[in-house]
């Protein structure tokens, strides 16, 4: 069923997933560190190994605008972006969600300017946190590939019909070469299946109006329907992940506990950091420390019920945010505080890795041993709380 492991970067792995999905339309605008994704896919098209229509647009705002038009016209549509690109298209990401356009987008997470920076943090994802787009986070290149194949099924499910962002840490995953096992092309294609949406714009037998004005009499209800679609996305993801498991042997969940049984202290995080935390958890477990990890595969929708069930009996939960919110609570911490409201959990907030600053195992160990400051790796004294 599967091919032999190959050395691929996260960017190359997602380009391979796109080749297998073979979307009809790919509006593209380059930006570091996602460029290898669209460059890889464009190379496949040039080689005749993929057949999608590449649309070179003049900005990310146009990329998402073109993607909405294509997806609603009846074409499976994929794009990719990072950082400032996601910021520029943010306005249109909201519109994609509200028009229920099942666009799939690969994100190479990168810090927002300024100062300008090209390396990883999650501030770009957090900027579109409330857009109504689904956001799944990959820990490594294999997961980025796997989630990219699951993404169209999730986006296009009739109960969901929302944009899906497959997020991988910029450079750390997009440019890091690791062993990746691909599905056979025909198996991947059969899993993804044909593109079908309920009300194609080009279906002249059933003409529809899409994206109309909605005044106070309807806006609230339409926005609420997006909320219902987001809630539906959780069981749909579990179902798709289960089907994917049958093909690949790799099982995904919207929240993934690691060594949480009997843990007194758990870390919660997103993205590539989860792998480094797993190594530290194994070391500390071997030393007799009751520590564990809860990795969120799905940030939007936030699986609040499963998060609460996994963590409500744990004494201390340390949330590692790779983004901050000046004047407010860091975004992942705020989610955990809401999910664990009313429990006895001692919830702690840590911010790390902004602008690509590395996070070392010793620093993760210090979080578990309660020897870490709230801003991990920050030089100089933090400002008063």
């Amino acid at each position: 069923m599967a091919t032999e492991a190959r050395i691929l970067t996260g960017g190359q792995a997602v380009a391979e997933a796109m080749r297998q999905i073979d979307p009809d339309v790919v509006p593209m605008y380059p930006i570091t560190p996602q460029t290898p994704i669209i460059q890889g896919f464009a190379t496949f098209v040039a080689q005749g190994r993929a057949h999608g229509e590449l649309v070179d647009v003049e900005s990310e705002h146009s990329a998402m605008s073109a993607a909405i038009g294509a997806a609603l016209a009846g074409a499976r549509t994929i794009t990719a972006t990072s950082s400032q690109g996601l910021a520029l298209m943010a306005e249109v990401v909201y519109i994609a969600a509200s028009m229920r356009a099942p666009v799939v987008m690969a994100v190479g997470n990168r810090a927002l300017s300024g100062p300008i920076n090209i390396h990883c943090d999650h501030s770009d994802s957090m900027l579109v946190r409330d857009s109504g787009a689904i956001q799944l986070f990959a820990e490594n290149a294999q997961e980025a590939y796997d989630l990219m194949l699951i993404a169209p099924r999730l986006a296009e499910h009739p109960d969901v019909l929302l944009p899906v962002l497959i997020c991988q840490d910029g450079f750390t995953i997009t440019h890091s070469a690791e062993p990746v096992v691909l599905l056979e092309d025909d198996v991947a294609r059969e899993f993804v299946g044909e593109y079908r949406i309920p009300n194609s714009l080009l279906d002249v037998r059933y003409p529809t109006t899409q994206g109309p004005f909605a005044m106070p009499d309807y806006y609230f209800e339409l926005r609420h329907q997006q909320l219902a679609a987001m809630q539906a996305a959780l069981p749909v993801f579990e179902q798709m992940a289960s089907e994917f498991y049958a093909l690949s042997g790799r099982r995904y969940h919207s929240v993934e506990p690691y060594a949480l049984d009997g843990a007194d202290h758990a870390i919660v995080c997103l993205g590539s950091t989860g792998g480094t935390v797993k190594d530290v958890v194994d070391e500390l477990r071997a030393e007799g420390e009751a520590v564990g990890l809860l990795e969120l595969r799905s940030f939007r929708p936030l699986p609040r019920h499963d998060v609460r069930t996994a963590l409500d009996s744990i004494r201390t939960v340390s949330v590692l945010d790779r983004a901050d919110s000046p004047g407010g609570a860091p975004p992942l911490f705020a989610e955990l505080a809401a999910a664990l409201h009313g429990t006895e959990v001692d919830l702690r907030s840590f911010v790390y890795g902004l602008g690509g600053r590395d996070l070392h195992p010793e620093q993760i160990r210090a979080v578990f041993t309660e020897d870490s400051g709230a801003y991990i790796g920050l030089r100089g004294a933090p400002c008063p709380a």
Partner: protein
Amino acid sequence: MKEIRWHARAGQGAKTASQLYATARLHEGQSVQAFPEYGPERRGAPLRAYTRIDDKPIRRHDAIMHPDVVVVLEPSLLHEVDVTEGLAPDGIVLLNADTAPASLAGLDVRCVPAARIAGDSKFVNLVLVGALAAVLHDPVDAVADAAIELLGGKVAHDEIRTAVEKGYACLS
């Protein structure tokens, strides 16, 4: 776990070398990771790349701080960059040079005149990857095969194999 750091100037093939060595170890059944360090992207700028090798799956994604082996493709970098920074206590420096400079006295330095061996082919990176296989007691064939797998579409296979084998022979 073995951790390797590659020093070169952008354009000299350090990133390729880091991935090529990883590919060879993957085919030998090990878990691997290869990644460059990105700064300003301009030809000739000092660049670092990394390879991680382990018998069990590699999950961590932090930078390599204490490499077991440092491979220096470009000797002029010795005057610009501290190539021994963080080197593990019994670490090895694999250097493209005839003899070790005084600045590296006291360290385990293995010299390979890779530029001269590579000659007109300019495959300094392949010569050093071959030499690295000798230093780490890995089979040279796996490295040559991986090099052909990665570069064989553009370069004559014999040329690739010769460069790798000459580097290996130098230190085995």
